[in-house]
């Protein structure tokens, strides 16, 4: 029996068409997946059904009757409930209090426990939301909708923040609800999960409806092609090359988060050159603080972050050090002459003489440079000549400035190089041109404000800029979040290429499949502790999932 039917739904935001003339129907009592890349209009369409948005044109039918859903309250009237990606709970209330909000009928803890037992939820009605894990909050959101008499449940990217075990449990619940006759609509872009849980799949691409397929009659390959619109290569390349020695050695590092809570506790690990070290963990386990601490953005830290620059017997360069630094270090006996192998003291030489010697590569390092980065600010790290690049998860809020154009964003890293207090826009301009060309950035011009570009193009600009300094260490957090498939695979490719060039890469990711395919080693963080450093070639996803929830 048909439960919901969309007819010619169109929804635009300004000049962006989020949904264009979409028509399909969903049967009662099925698990129905809406599959599409980021920005394909999945969430917009379901928000129309949930009463968050009003469609510009088109009609929605429920049980064969046309309905006009003006608000989420209206949606409940038609027994439709939605669990959003960002939960809408009152942190200082208990589970029960959250369920009671806006309800007219009286409930007791017993009622909640009853429903939980019926479907297999694990939820303590007396627990406060701020004490809950992400999976518990999600459970609470689902239970909330059930008490509002919902028989059609919409889940927006429900597995994005869950561990493999939690996903398995969620799918069990979904199956129980289906048995109970409820219709479940899941918005997702994860192919393997679609195959596992759904009965039928509707595919959206760039706001257009493509097709609905029976899950039993399709496979992941075909779905991917439909989703992207052309043949795609879903293999991630991991170049198997030997590492080039320890680059970064982190010992007993502890750090606080922005609110002053403990985010990292006593963690130790090494990062090697020519290696991608993956960092896995439930979001908020300290990944962000780990990267920000290494980058020098976190003040309250304990422990040490030892950076080893492989400079033994290599010439000193001006890219690496300036004249004054070279003088200072020569006093400490860090260099020797290439010709005579004698220790060199440059204190009595003029700047010109030093410049000539350096340019002729006549001054070499005795040993690798070893520097503790702890308590060093980003600028100090830079001044020491350490090429450390960081692609933060918040691209427009941290890595780039949305209201500036491409050139000015390139300048973020180099604007201090200007002369007499004025900035030099020429080199950043050239760099922007180069990145646009090499990474195929789609932009009307170099003078376009970056916020006007799509997520994939924004990320290309950021990654391009960070790679342009030929970093010794590259840190990146969720670099493909919000990106389309093609851009994602381009980023994976760039990271692998950078690894081959000898860079030590720390990659914080959320998609375990990707982490396992791309990384050479995998570090698992849980609650600010390291619960394992494993070889992804020799471990299963379930084992990693267990490590993610330990400690």
């Amino acid at each position, binding site marked *: 029996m048909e439960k919901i039917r969309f007819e010619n739904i169109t929804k635009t935001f300004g000049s962006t068409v989020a949904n264009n003339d979409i028509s399909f129907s969903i049967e009662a009592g099925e698990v129905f997946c809406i599959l599409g890349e980021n920005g394909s209009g999945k969430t917009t369409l379901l928000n129309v059904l949930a009463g968050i948005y009003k469609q510009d044109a088109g009609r929605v039918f429920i049980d064969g009757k046309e309905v006009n859903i003006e608000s989420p309250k209206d949606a409940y009237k038609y027994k439709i409930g939605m669990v959003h990606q960002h939960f809408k709970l009152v942190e200082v209330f208990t589970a029960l209090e959250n369920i009671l909000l806006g309800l007219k009928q009286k409930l007791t803890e017993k009622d909640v426990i009853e429903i939980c037992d019926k479907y297999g939820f694990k939820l303590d009605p007396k627990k406060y939301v701020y004490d809950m894990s992400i999976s518990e909050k999600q459970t609470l959101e689902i239970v909330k909708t059930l008490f509002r008499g919902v028989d059609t449940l919409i889940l927006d990217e429900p597995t994005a923040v869950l561990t493999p075990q939690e996903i398995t449990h969620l799918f069990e619940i979904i199956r129980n609800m289906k048995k109970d006759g409820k219709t479940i609509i899941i918005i997702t872009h994860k192919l393997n999960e679609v195959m596992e849980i759904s009965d039928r799949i509707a595919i959206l691409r760039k706001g257009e409806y493509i097709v609905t397929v029976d899950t039993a009659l399709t496979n992941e390959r075909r779905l991917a092609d439909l989703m992207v619109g052309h043949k795609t290569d879903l293999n991630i390349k991991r170049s198997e090359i030997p590492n080039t020695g320890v680059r970064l050695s982190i010992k007993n590092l502890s750090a606080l988060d922005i609110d002053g809570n403990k985010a990292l506790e006593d963690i130790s690990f090494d990062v090697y050159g020519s290696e991608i070290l993956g960092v896995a963990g439930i979001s908020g386990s300290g990944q962000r603080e780990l990267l920000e601490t290494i980058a020098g953005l976190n003040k309250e830290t304990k422990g040490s972050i030892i950076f080893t620059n492989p400079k033994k017997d290599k010439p000193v360069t001006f890219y690496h050090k300036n004249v004054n630094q070279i003088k200072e270090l020569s006093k400490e006996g860090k260099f020797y002459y290439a010709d005579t192998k004698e220790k060199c003291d440059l204190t009595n030489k003029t700047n010109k003489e030093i410049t000539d010697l350096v340019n002729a590569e006549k001054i070499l390092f005795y040993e690798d440079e070893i520097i503790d980065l702890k308590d060093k600010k*980003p600028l100090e790290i830079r001044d020491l000549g350490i090429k450390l690049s960081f692609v933060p998860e918040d691209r427009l809020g*941290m890595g780039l*400035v949305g209201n500036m154009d491409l050139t000015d964003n390139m300048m973020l890293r180099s604007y*201090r190089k*200007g002369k007499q*207090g004025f900035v030099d826009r020429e080199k950043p301009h050239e760099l922007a041109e180069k990145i646009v060309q090499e990474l195929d950035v789609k932009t009307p011009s170099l003078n376009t404000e970056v916020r006007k570009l799509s997520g994939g193009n924004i990320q290309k600009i950021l990654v391009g800029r960070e790679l342009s300094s030929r970093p010794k260490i590259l840190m990146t957090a969720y670099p493909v979040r919000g990106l389309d498939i093609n851009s994602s695979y381009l980023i994976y490719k760039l990271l692998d290429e950078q690894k081959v060039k000898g860079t030590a890469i720390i990659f914080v990711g959320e998609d375990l499949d990707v982490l396992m395919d791309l990384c050479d080693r995998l570090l698992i963080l849980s609650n600010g502790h390291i619960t394992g450093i494993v070889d992804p070639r020799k471990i299963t996803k379930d084992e990693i999932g267990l490590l993610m929830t330990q400690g």
Partner: protein
Amino acid sequence: MERVKEEKKKFKWPFYITKKIGLPKWKYWLIRVGGILLAFLVAGITCAILKPGTFGLFYSEMFRGCFDFSDISSVIDLFVEFSLLLLIALALTPAFKMKFWNIGAEGQILIGCLISAWIARFAPSEWPNFLILLCCGIGSVVAGMIWSVIPALFKAFFNTNETLFTLMMNYIAKILSALAISLWIKNGSQSFGVLTQGTFPEIMQNSGTLVIVFAIVAFVMLYFYLKNSIHGYEISVVGESLNTARYVGIDVKKVIIRTMIFTGSLMGFIGFLIVCGVHQSFNDSIVAGKGFTGVLIAWLGHFEPFEIALFSFLSAVFEQGTTTAASAVNMSSHQFSSICTGIFFFIIIACEFFSSYQIKMHKKEKEEEVKDDVSN
């Protein structure tokens, strides 16, 4: 069922407001130019309503008040007013770009005025004029700087709200000025009189002419400071995102304090120009709201020097033109000019609203309402 009834009774506006996206630049300027013309028209109509039959006279008098080249001094007066507004709005711009909402321009200027008046009045008369002027200038700059750096320090170290803080500093400056006058003037007239020393030379029959020169210099300098200097770039980054500033290693506290020192110094200097150049006198309302008008102008000019110049000029024309027109038709010139300036800004701000939002009518709801009416 009850709930459904309730919802039907709820009143609904027949229109709603949505955001306009992607308005082309020329259309935006068309709206603005239209707004400016409308402001002139409405001011004329207001004049004609208050004093019937003066509609034409209003415009001719307004023009004469501003651009009568036979009376060169009055034309210079216009440009002095324009220069002052321009200087104030420009001085505010770096801080505003940084999202430091300094609305204390009035007080920062006034404290500069106070120090200039104090030095000029009490400097030994055997000092040469330029030395007195130099002392006035330096003293005012320091005073303005102190007035603006106090809120900046509190913002940087204790994250206090700069808007309230700078606003309150205005009142302190005003009270200090009133106090100073009552201490200086013992005869009860409360009138400061005219400065006899420490005054700008008259050029083209007007002692304010030099102000115009300073404004031009400041305009050029600020233009390049904002667009091409390292400081200007840092200000933009801090204003756009504190996290990005942290990420690239900008010391945000330093930038806030440095920028406010800059703003305050310029404000103090403007105070010096007003006392020693324009008025050659002093009282506690000598700034006459220019500090607040400057805030408006900086905003309307989107912190772009050329746009700021345009609105400073229009604002000066409106003020001086309507003052002349008012006295020509026998009205209280100050009040009428205030009304007209109000009309001007009101319409320009409305233009801002209509260029970023549009009003649409509900289509379906209209039909429903009609049905309701029939059933009633």
